[in-house]
């Protein structure tokens, strides 16, 4: 053992160096950057200030955008959960020989880049897209499906569905089917078996799926940009816009505020659902 034991830190050294040099240091650098003076001629001016944070946290424009982002993320999380649960349940319990195919179908979006999937939605939802062409042929009024929240939410739900189905499936597979049978034998109908046995026991999966999707939705950038096309603003699109305007210190502050608020929401949620979990066990 001694040979390996002496060299074991060598195993951790590359990842340590890489994540430190190109993740930790850059993030610390953002923190420093967010405290710099803005400047119109260079990346930042001399001296330090907290103005960027004050602006990010008080200017109604940015506060509203932040709240919108959180609201959209919460909405996306709930819709994803509602759609994913039946699918996850079905996949976890089915003995159909199509199970493998269906499983592959659920995972398939992961193999297709975000841009391509967003592209597919554009073809469908655009003002002269496939759906509106069909509407016209049926002499129905044109629907505004894109360049609004509807399109963004729809496409993001699609993108994040696999991230919800997988943890849910894991949790449901972990529930002994005999528990359901036991509950039935004790006189619970299907609805109550679901509410009193399955739902509480799949809570850990629900929790991790929701946290994952919420965090991903808060950080989404490409889809809101392409499907919102300047009419749906999320904090990420605003942050990147600041970079394009060369307002780096403010962009950094805005990015940090988003991360912090996002983490806080997740923490609150974890605490609340943790209480529910404990209450049930």
């Amino acid at each position, binding site marked *: *053992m001694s*040979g*390996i034991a002496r060299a*074991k830190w*060598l*195993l*951790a050294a*590359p*990842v340590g160096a*890489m*994540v430190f040099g*190109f*993740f930790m240091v*850059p*993030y610390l*650098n*953002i923190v420093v*950057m967010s405290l710099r003076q803005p400047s119109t001629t260079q*990346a930042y001016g001399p001296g330090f200030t907290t103005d960027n944070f004050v602006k990010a946290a008080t200017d109604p424009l940015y506060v509203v955008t932040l709240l919108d982002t959180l609201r959209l993320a919460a909405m996306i999380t709930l819709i994803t959960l509602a*759609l*994913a649960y*039946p*699918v996850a349940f*079905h996949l976890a319990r089915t003995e159909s020989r199509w199970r493998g195919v*269906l499983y592959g*179908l*659920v995972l*398939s979006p992961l*193999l*297709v*880049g*975000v*841009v*391509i*999937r967003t*592209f*597919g*939605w*554009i*073809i*469908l939802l655009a003002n*002269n897209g*496939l759906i509106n*062409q069909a509407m016209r042929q049926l002499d129905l009024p044109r629907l505004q499906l894109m360049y609004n929240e509807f399109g963004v939410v729809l*496409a993001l739900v*699609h993108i994040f*569905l696999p991230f919800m189905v997988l943890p849910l499936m894991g949790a449901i597979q972990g529930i002994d089917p005999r528990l359901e049978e036991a509950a039935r034998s004790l006189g619970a109908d*299907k609805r109550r078996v679901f509410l009193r046995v399955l739902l509480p026991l799949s809570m850990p999966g629900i929790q991790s799926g929701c946290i994952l999707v919420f*965090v991903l939705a*808060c*950080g989404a*950038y*490409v889809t809101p940009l*392409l499907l919102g096309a300047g009419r749906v603003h999320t904090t*990420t699109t605003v942050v*990147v816009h600041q970079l394009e305007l060369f307002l780096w210190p403010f962009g*950094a502050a805005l*990015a940090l505020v*988003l*991360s912090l608020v996002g983490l806080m929401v997740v923490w609150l949620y974890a605490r609340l659902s943790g209480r529910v979990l404990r209450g049930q066990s």
Partner: protein
Amino acid sequence: MKLWRGLFGGLIGAVYVFLMLPIAIVVMASFNSTRALRFPPEGFSLRWYVAFFESEPFMESFRLSLVLGVAATVASVLIGTPAALYYVRFAGRWREAFRLYVLAPLLLPEILTAIALLFFYYQIGIGTKSVAGLFIGHVVVCIPFVFLQVTASLYNLSPSLEEAARSLGASPWMTFLRITLPLIKPGVINGALFAFIISFDNVSISLLLKGIGSTPLPMQLFDYLRWGFDPTTAAASVVSILMTLGAVVLVDRLVGLRAMRF
């Protein structure tokens, strides 16, 4: 009861259709003969594929994405595998902290990581002049996927197998080569697959770190889509989907046959 069952089945079916819909549409658009996709589609043509393969910017992006994907995969496997080994076999008191540290790039929004790297590169003076910056960004976001896969396969590997090899006279290094590595190979290859897909489809990192004249394929698509609609992008998308699918099939061939069977 029957009604419920029907509704439930209908909902599940609808979700599967929903999952496939945009991908199917892109594939359709790529084979459509006219510029604008009509409903119902009119005519079959490969002209957009021809346009794609003849387009210098697209081909350049495609090559860059491939090289970048392979390089990032190799690098993240070389870094992530030893990290997983350390975590599962040797990490002591700081185990969980180490895990969080390695997974951190997965836990924070990628676009923020990209911003952080962009600022950092400007501050140390390399800016977006070098493809190396882009490459490093890809490696940072790929490592967690390799780490997760290899960790999982190491957990399934009983330490007594390694001990048995040692008791039979194999050195630690020999034990790693002859016992550990062959047995975690499926995990390593799965991790590599993930890394390749993540790199090949990456937008957020590439968006901010791409340099002049070095635009990976998803970014090229992104730029085209931002300013208008061109079915060449659909053809490019389908080629890109085929690439990832190819990688999956390759992996299935590599580890799906023998190694998965024990």
